[in-house]
């Protein structure tokens, strides 16, 4: 007996193996209606495969997919009523933008007249109405991307699927497109799954993010949750710009808590209890650290490596032992720093990860 899930899009224990490679490994996701969900992860972790499973372009090895309370696992793509924007847009090169955008309506047998009005309407909305009669090769990358989006929304699908739709745009256009897509999604209220390997993009656009590593969804949460409470070291090291600093060391039991010792420093944690001496990792965010020039200060001893002014802030690269550590200072002027400094972090802002990488302490 299957239990029909409540959420709008549900993946249950979805698995896809290509021969020996398990691209998607028991992924379960539940996405509410109207939400913008980002699937985030490094290259090759199985994001595209997951998206293609939802679209029906791959057959799952096991598991089920529900859309709007209906089991669509066995349905072919054309019966799922989803829309997908491909990384290369896949605009048909022999059709004008008008024909491209109208195609989903045409194959659904809409009358010519209503296709024409609907295409105009959507194109107007996406500000490509004046180039509708050009071929895809005759418009810019940004316009192609809008046309691809127009083609996706034209028949008001139940779900939008995006596979890294911005990766072919240059940096400036990408920022514009982010805002535009987010605005459009909110306006239309269509449930969206958005695949990206760019954490900034996911943070900026999504209501909810699923972080994937090696075929598994490791953590699901709002952008802020992921930023504040990463479940493990991988997530912590993936999110943030630059991501969290992670330093290896050892954790041993001490009266009333435990003590972390790294390269030339020790830190005491009151509420953490371990049974024996173990490997552990200390974590802190670059934007939450401070630099002390006075070597008598307590803190993590570090060697200055490089200073990069970024305008409103300064990014400082340091070496702690052999590990690289970033510190972000909100200052417009370049601080004068000695070669040896101390990195200081408010103890309540520190993270600890155990030897398996699981997070055992988060900020209060």
């Amino acid at each position, binding site marked *: 007996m299957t239990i029909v899930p409540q959420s709008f899009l549900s993946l249950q224990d979805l698995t896809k193996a290509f021969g020996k490679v398990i691209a998607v490994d028991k992924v379960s996701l539940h996405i509410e209606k109207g939400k913008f969900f980002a699937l985030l992860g490094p290259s090759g972790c199985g994001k595209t495969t997951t998206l293609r499973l939802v679209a*029906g372009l791959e057959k799952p090895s096991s598991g089920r997919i529900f859309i709007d309370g209906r089991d669509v696992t066995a349905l072919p793509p054309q019966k799922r009523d989803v829309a997908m924007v491909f990384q290369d847009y896949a605009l048909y090169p022999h059709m004008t933008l008008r024909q491209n955008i109208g195609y989903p309506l045409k194959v659904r047998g809409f009358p010519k007249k209503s296709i024409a009005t609907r295409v105009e309407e959507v194109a107007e909305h996406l500000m490509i109405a004046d180039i509708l009669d050009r071929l895809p090769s005759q418009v810019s990358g940004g316009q192609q991307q809008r046309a691809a989006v127009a083609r996706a929304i034209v028949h008001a699908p139940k779900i939008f699927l995006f596979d890294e739709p911005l990766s072919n745009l240059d940096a400036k256009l990408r920022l514009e497109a982010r805002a535009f897509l987010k605005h459009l999604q909110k306006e239309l209220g269509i449930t969206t799954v958005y695949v990206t390997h760019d954490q900034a993009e996911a943070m900026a656009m999504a209501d909810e993010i699923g972080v994937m590593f090696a075929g598994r969804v490791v953590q699901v949460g709002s952008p802020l949750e992921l930023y504040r409470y990463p479940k493990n070291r991988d997530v912590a090291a993936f999110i943030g710009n630059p991501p969290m600093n992670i330093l290896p060391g050892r954790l041993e039991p001490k009266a009333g808590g435990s003590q972390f010792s790294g390269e030339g420093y020790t830190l005491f944690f009151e509420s953490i209890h371990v049974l024996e001496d173990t490997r552990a990792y200390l974590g802190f965010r670059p934007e939450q650290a401070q630099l002390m020039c006075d070597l008598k200060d307590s803190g993590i001893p570090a060697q200055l490596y490089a200073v990069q002014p970024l305008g409103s802030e300064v990014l400082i690269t340091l070496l702690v032992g052999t590990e690289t550590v970033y510190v972000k200072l909100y200052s417009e002027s370049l601080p004068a720093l000695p070669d040896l400094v101390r990195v200081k972090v408010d103890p309540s802002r520190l993270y600890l990860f155990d030897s398996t990488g699981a997070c055992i302490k988060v900020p209060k």
Partner: protein
Amino acid sequence: MKRRDYVSILPRSVAFAFLAPAVLFLATFLIFPVIWVLVISFTNTALTGPAGTSPSFVGVSNFSQLFNFARWMRLGEFGNALVNTVIFVLGSALLGQVPLGLAIAMLFHKRRGLSRELVFSLATMAWILPGVAVAFAWIAFLDKDFGNLNAILSVFGISKIDWYFDFPLYSIILFNVWRGTAFSMLLFSAALGNIPPSFWETADVIGASAWQRFRDIIFPLIRPNLFTALILVTLWTFNVFTPYLITGGGPLYRSETVSMYTYRIAFKFLEFGRGAAVAVIMMSINFILATIYLSLQRRRSLYGR
């Protein structure tokens, strides 16, 4: 490129419907004939006479007749055709088309413009014009009294040569070089085009001579294409029938190749049993050549080219 196993874009039933006509044709006109020709080669099938109505099994007698060593080298016999074919293939394919095609490709590798257009277009024309039309042109070209070839040679003080009568085999070799060089030329010019320009420039910078450059840089890079050309051209030349339109295999079978011999036995004498036996031998040779070619291809794709 990573290989992706997508869900089929075509449902299986549609895909098989798409494949059906091609498979039907291939099965009927490619696979079935191979099997059948084997069967016929052991019979005395003919279209006329008593064997025409009820062919009977004759064992290997068709084959033993072909390889009757007492007489097989006589003009008009199988051995004669075989020797002619070997000379024909060696001369026109290995010594003619492939080196000439390579030379043209090398010469025009970095040249554009009229001379290249001219040479490439003419060679390609020679390759694709209908065989019958070019055969008549060649009969005229080689004619003893009026032909252009002798006319030109006479400028150099060479007296008239009766090409058809004195050099029938050389005539069709020359014809076949003319006819088929375009393939090697196009193959090598594509292959040379794939060599990154930096390879040539590096050689220039280190001051390699033209010959060193060819031997150390170009040759190793195009060696696979050289093998491809050699094998394919050999295969095609072995089977080619167009020279028949020029000499008819004559005079007195002196330019008869195996391909013409098969035609004569099967379609002039209508002795299909014996014709099939020759066909089996030809197909076996084709099979060996094709297998060498394909294994070279496969090895090459293993090395990612």
